């Protein structure tokens, strides 16, 4: 019997699914039409050439329709998520009702399907620009772009053909995606009250803008690829470089920004304690970035000297293939055990492989077919020429890339050859060992090649002009390594020297730019930014210091004590100041907002001589508690200074119980330690663990709520001042004599974990009995936290920003060259 489902809103899904199919078909049509528009224009036959215009018109219409379809898919999906239509798996899996609107945008691309859509959207956007600015390049360039568009659309189709499911649709219904007995009921929707919600780590404002930036970077890398293919296809071998150059710079700039945004997100929102972890997912995005950076340099070299044509073309082509390889790595589930960040497999393994192989095949095919005609110079480069060193620099970058690629691809290697190679025990050290020397070489080349001219430079002049900079760099480096505390490691000193040299050399170029050679400004600024980024990354990574060192662990045997690993977590009890490096740190309490619990951690730097507070700030690292699953998800908080950051996250906290109600049969007093009983008088003080209690006086006129006092009843309040940590709390426990029986009403002081009872009066001794209950120390609130000081990390972020400014300047310059050319 067919079940009648109640309350489902199926229209947006059906519409969305239609748009997906439509976008796939229109992309395919546009590819074919652009293909024929290109080939007919190349034809020798007059009438065929005339038909090119017709093909172009069809292609343009198909492209416009494709753009509309892509927008349609996005609108339908947004509508579903925004309106919490949990009958759709995507909305159920990635969002929830309590999610604020701006995070609904993040949940849009939390899943693979949404991020594929984002990629399609950007490709459509880039295509629109090509249509208006591409001129003679439109047909060939758009053929490649629309082929890629068709590939991505096919990933979203989610239709079964011959028992094979092609792609994964974001519009699949929950009852089709997940098996469950509740779907046997027509009214199952009433029982699904909320979605799974967005991964809390992604609930960060950087996650709203990082994915779109990154995907714009990935998507725009197809443009130089398409130009290079177009150049080979239409035999306009060197011509394509001029229009492709601003695009290449654009892709490099956006992808670089996207990567660093991700790095900043990791630093601000994740608790792995750093800004770069050499995680396979991070590596996958930086590999194509590095090859395209290399490509930019040889493209410029070729443009100015005619050398390195093959290298330039090859690097541009391989960069996009590596983008596809990166998406294969992160989306196919192959990284499995080596990365915690990768997507899980959606059954698209071979589909993704096909995507990579198809574009690799196209690249190789065109290179092979046109090999004999490629404008490869037979002439040897001059050693003292800029083009030679641009070429060498690009090669070094490529080699650095090969290393990252080889290490990241270990799981792929295992899958192909059936081996079981594990990643290196210390991943970060493994990568740094290789990448630091490469960075040194690259920084040096980026410095001195600025003083070389194209074609030929007089070696004498060259050495004179760099020698002063080299010498000045020695002194600055000496000062810098001393102040930044990295003089113990030779490699660090060399890298600092190379970077300082690069900054100075490029600064010199920049001053010339101000004198009128403005065209040089872009590269000088970008290189200064890059060198600053290197120093910042080096210093922050090499000298970051865990300040929450704790060596008070007890009683775990000699075996444990032998291992000299620093003990990086420290326990803080509420209101007990603890010394941590130069800080006096106090856990002040917590507050809960929505799903997050914020822990108030106060940091003070106190001058030891005069007790003056020199620094005072409070950090709010948070954790999402999930009492049901008995887990926490912690996010750090960071105090930013100009020259260092103090980074803190909780590593363990007491789990809040779901209900605070006392169970029957348990008296409240069980929560306290055995009480201490004192016989006191007015003016006496009684000590407790964190302070003292002062007996101020007696209130003979005490009143107790809901208990009317008879004539002979006596109620006395004991006025107490509880002094702790410089603060005074008032409390007044009450003693009651009613109808000849003794009662007392204790007062609880939660902030101090105290309960005070005025339990008896001894008129004969003239004493009053005070009972002090104190919560055991362990019951007090505590947090285990880890704190790290990152020195000079702003050089890293600042360098990035300067580098991006350099790219923007270069884009303007290269874009102008298209118009003048």
């Amino acid at each position: 019997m067919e079940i009648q489902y109640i309350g489902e809103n199926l229209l947006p899904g059906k519409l969305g699914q239609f748009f997906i199919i439509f976008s796939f078909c229109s992309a395919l049509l546009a590819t074919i039409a652009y293909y024929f528009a290109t080939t007919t224009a190349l034809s020798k036959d007059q009438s065929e050439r005339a038909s090119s215009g017709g093909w172009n018109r069809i292609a343009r219409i198909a492209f416009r329709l494709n753009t509309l379809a892509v927008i349609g898919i996005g609108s339908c999906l947004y509508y579903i998520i925004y309106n919490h239509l949990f009958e759709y798996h995507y909305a159920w899996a990635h969002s929830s009702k309590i999610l604020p609107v701006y995070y609904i945008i993040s949940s849009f691309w939390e899943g693979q399907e949404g991020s594929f859509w984002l990629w399609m959207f950007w490709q459509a956007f880039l295509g629109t620009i090509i249509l208006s600015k591409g001129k003679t390049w439109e047909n060939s360039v758009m053929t490649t772009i629309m082929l890629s568009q068709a590939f991505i659309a096919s990933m979203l189709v989610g239709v079964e053909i011959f028992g094979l499911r092609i792609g994964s649709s974001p519009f699949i219904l929950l009852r089709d995606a997940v098996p469950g007995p509740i779907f046997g009921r027509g009214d199952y929707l009433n029982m699904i009250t909320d979605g799974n919600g967005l991964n809390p780590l992604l609930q960060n404002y950087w996650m709203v803008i990082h994915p779109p930036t990154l995907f714009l970077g990935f998507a725009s890398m197809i443009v130089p690829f398409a130009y290079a293919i177009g150049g080979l296809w239409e035999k306009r071998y060197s011509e394509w470089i001029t229009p492709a150059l601003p695009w290449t710079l654009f892709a490099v700039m956006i992808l670089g920004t996207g990567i660093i945004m991700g790095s900043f997100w990791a630093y601000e929102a994740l608790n792995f304690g750093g800004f770069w972890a050499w995680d396979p997912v991070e590596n996958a995005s930086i590999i194509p970035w590095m090859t395209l950076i290399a490509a930019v340099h040889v493209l410029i070299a070729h443009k100015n000297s005619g050398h390195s044509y093959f290298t330039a073309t090859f690097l541009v082509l391989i960069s996009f293939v590596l983008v596809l390889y990166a998406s294969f790595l992160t989306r196919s589930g192959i990284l499995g055990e080596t990365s915690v960040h990768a997507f899980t497999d959606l059954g698209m393994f071979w589909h993704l492989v096909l995507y990579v192989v198809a574009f690799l095949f196209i690249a190789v095919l065109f290179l092979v077919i046109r090999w004999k005609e490629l404008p490869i110079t037979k002439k040897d480069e001059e050693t003292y020429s800029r083009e030679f060193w641009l070429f060498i620099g690009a090669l070094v970058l490529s080699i650095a890339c090969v290393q990252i690629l080889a290490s990241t691809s270990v799981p792929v290697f295992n899958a192909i050859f059936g081996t079981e190679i594990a990643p290196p025990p210390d991943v970060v050290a493994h990568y740094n060992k290789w990448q630091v020397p490469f960075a040194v070489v690259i920084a040096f080349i980026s410095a001195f090649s600025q003083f070389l001219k194209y074609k030929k430079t007089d070696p004498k002049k060259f050495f004179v002009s760099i020698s002063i900079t080299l010498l000045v760099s020695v002194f600055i480096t000496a000062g810098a390594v001393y102040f930044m505390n990295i003089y113990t490691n030779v490699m660090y000193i060399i890298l600092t020297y190379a970077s300082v040299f690069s900054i100075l050399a490029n600064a010199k170029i920049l001053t010339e730019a101000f004198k009128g050679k403005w065209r040089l400004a872009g590269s000088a600024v970008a290189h200064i930014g890059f060198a600053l980024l290197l120093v910042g990354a080096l210093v922050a990574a090499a000298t970051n210091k865990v300040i929450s060192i704790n060596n008070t662990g007890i009683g775990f045997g000699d075996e444990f004590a032998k291992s000299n690993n620093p003990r990086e977590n420290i326990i803080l009890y509420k209101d007990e100041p603890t010394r941590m490096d130069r800080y006096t740190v106090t856990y002040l309490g917590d507050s809960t907002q929505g799903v997050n619990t914020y822990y108030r951690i106060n940091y003070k730097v106190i001058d030891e001589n005069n007790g003056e507070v020199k620094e005072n700030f409070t950090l709010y690292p948070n954790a999402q508690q999930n009492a049901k699953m008995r887990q926490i998800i912690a996010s750090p908080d960071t105090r930013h200074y100009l020259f260092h950051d103090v980074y803190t996250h909780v590593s363990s906290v007491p789990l809040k119980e779901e209900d605070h109600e006392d169970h029957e049969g348990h008296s409240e007093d069980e929560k306290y330690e055995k009480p201490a009983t004192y016989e006191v008088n007015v003016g006496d003080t009684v000590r407790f663990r964190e302070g003292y209690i002062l007996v101020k006086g007696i209130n003979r006129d005490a009143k107790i709520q809901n208990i009317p006092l008879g004539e002979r009843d006596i109620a006395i309040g004991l006025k107490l001042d509880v002094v702790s940590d410089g603060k005074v709390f008032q409390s007044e426990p009450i003693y009651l004599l009613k109808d000849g029986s003794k009662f007392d009403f204790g007062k609880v002081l939660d902030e101090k974990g105290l309960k005070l009872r005025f339990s008896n009066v001894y008129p004969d001794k003239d004493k009053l009995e005070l009972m002090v209950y104190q919560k055991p120390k362990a019951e007090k609130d505590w947090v285990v936290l880890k704190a790290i000081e990152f020195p000079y990390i702003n050089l890293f972020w600042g360098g990035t920003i300067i580098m991006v400014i350099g790219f923007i300047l270069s884009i303007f310059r290269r874009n102008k060259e298209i118009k003048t050319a």
Partner: protein
Amino acid sequence: MKKSSIAGIIIIAFAIGIIISTYADSSTYGSFADAIESSSDLHVVGQLNKEKELFYKPHQDANYFAFYMKDNDGKECRVVFNGSKPQDFERSEQIVLTGKMVGNEFHASKILMKCPSKYTTDQVEVREVTAKSAKT
């Protein structure tokens, strides 16, 4: 021969060298039995023994976490980790440890776990709302 060609050849040779040494740098997967034999760090894959106690008492030492893990051969071993208990540890389905044997304990320098995360598995959490609304 052109200078750039020579440079290219050197670079390719260098690249091959790097790839080989990258694989030489890598570690191996093994069992606790392998770890007893070996003196260098290796990766051990296994499951947490959920019946035995997880030892993490931050009041005594915030950097000492011990538990029992069964490797894929079924051999059980006490594992000591110098740090705080990873979030979500109890629910892990699979653990990959990096470290070595010290005495008869395995000292892990890194723990990687696979969890049936709320955000990756498809388990419909159903709340009976109907019953509740009937009451009110």
